């Protein structure tokens, strides 16, 4: 399990499962369709991702393909951080 996935699972457990373990939650399972998180939860998740991983999530990126499953979140955060690092390298070069 990646650090990002571990951090996301810890966030989900602490905020949406009264601290109970969420290891049963499949990484490909929709977080919204079964009601694990609601619309307020999505806002909380976005705030968490932006502060924990130091990324900026644009409005047009708030789509299920990016943030509706743990797998999608891990992929999305990885891509955002990769883009940030590439920009930093370009600026440095």
């Amino acid at each position, binding site marked *: 399990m990646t650090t990002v996935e571990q951090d996301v699972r810890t966030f989900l457990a602490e905020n949406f499962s009264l601290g109970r373990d969420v290891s049963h939650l499949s990484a490909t399972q929709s977080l*919204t*369709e079964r*009601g694990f998180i*609601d*619309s*307020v939860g*999505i*806002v*909380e998740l*976005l*705030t968490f991702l932006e502060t924990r991983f130091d990324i900026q999530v644009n*409005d*047009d990126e*708030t*789509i*299920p*393909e990016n*943030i509706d499953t743990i797998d999608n979140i891990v992929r999305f955060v990885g891509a955002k951080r990769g883009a940030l690092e590439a920009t930093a390298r370009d600026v440095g070069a």
Partner: protein
Amino acid sequence: MTLAPNVSMDLLRIDPEQVTAQIAAAMKSAVVQGMRKRGVVLGLSGGVDSSVCAALCARALGPERVLALLMPERESSPDSLELGRLAADSAGIPVLVEDISSVLDAAGCYSRRDDAIRTLIPEYGDGWRCKVSLPSVVESDRFRIFTVIAQGPDGTERRARVTPSAYLEMISATSFKQRARKMMEYYHADRCNYAVIGTPNRLEYDQGFFVKNGDGAADFKPIAHLYKSQVYQLAEYLGVPETIRTRPPTTDTYSLPQTQEEFYFSLPYDKMDLCLYARNNGIEPADVAAALGLSEQQIDRVFRDIDSKRRASRYLHLEPQLVADVDEVGG
């Protein structure tokens, strides 16, 4: 609107005379026999739902047993008061005006909300107006996250995505409006030994477009089973003034003008009605899409949004939960 031959707005057509008689009988039975009350109180917003309810109450119980309350506050549209009076006059029922601005001031409705907005838009202050807005369901697959839109005295517009704490504070502070109105309705109801009428239509009731213990609270809800387009059919039959029938539905909750579509529902009410009817009756998205001139993918999104709102509003409909049944109560 162009509609497919088998799925059309005709599915929502009612016999207004028969529906009026059914509602009047149910209201009389519930209020007079069931609750032992002498009449009803209802808040009139100037919208079509409360205006239809007023006319139904007058038919069911007689206009002298109905009391209409107009409850403006300082951010209400002036139209609301005028249209509310028009609806009451048209139904022949007495009216009282209760300005709730001072109640809201005392509760901190405006100041708490404004403090929350300032965490997002620091320059928000005196003379500024605001509203909240959601992205369109039909235009993209984006999650429906609120954006606060504020307009300064010089017309400058600022937008900011909500944070969890600002969102919750804004919504809970603003809900003082609906709860203050309901408190006033129950005051007059108790004073007159009346019951309180709730005015949601089926879209609002099903999709949770109400404040718990605010406009969601009532003793009898005469049109909660009717789609909004059916309410309009009743409005015409009952002689609700045309000015009210042709006014676009608004929330009249925020200081900037805001449609219900912008705040909550994903489509105009007639299209939303047909989608909800289709979802409730197992009609395929493709058939609805053809009828409404939208794509199947767009209807799929609307259906998902309907399901999501139903899940979210389950709490709003819940009665207080007990640890064990108390069988002696409520029979």
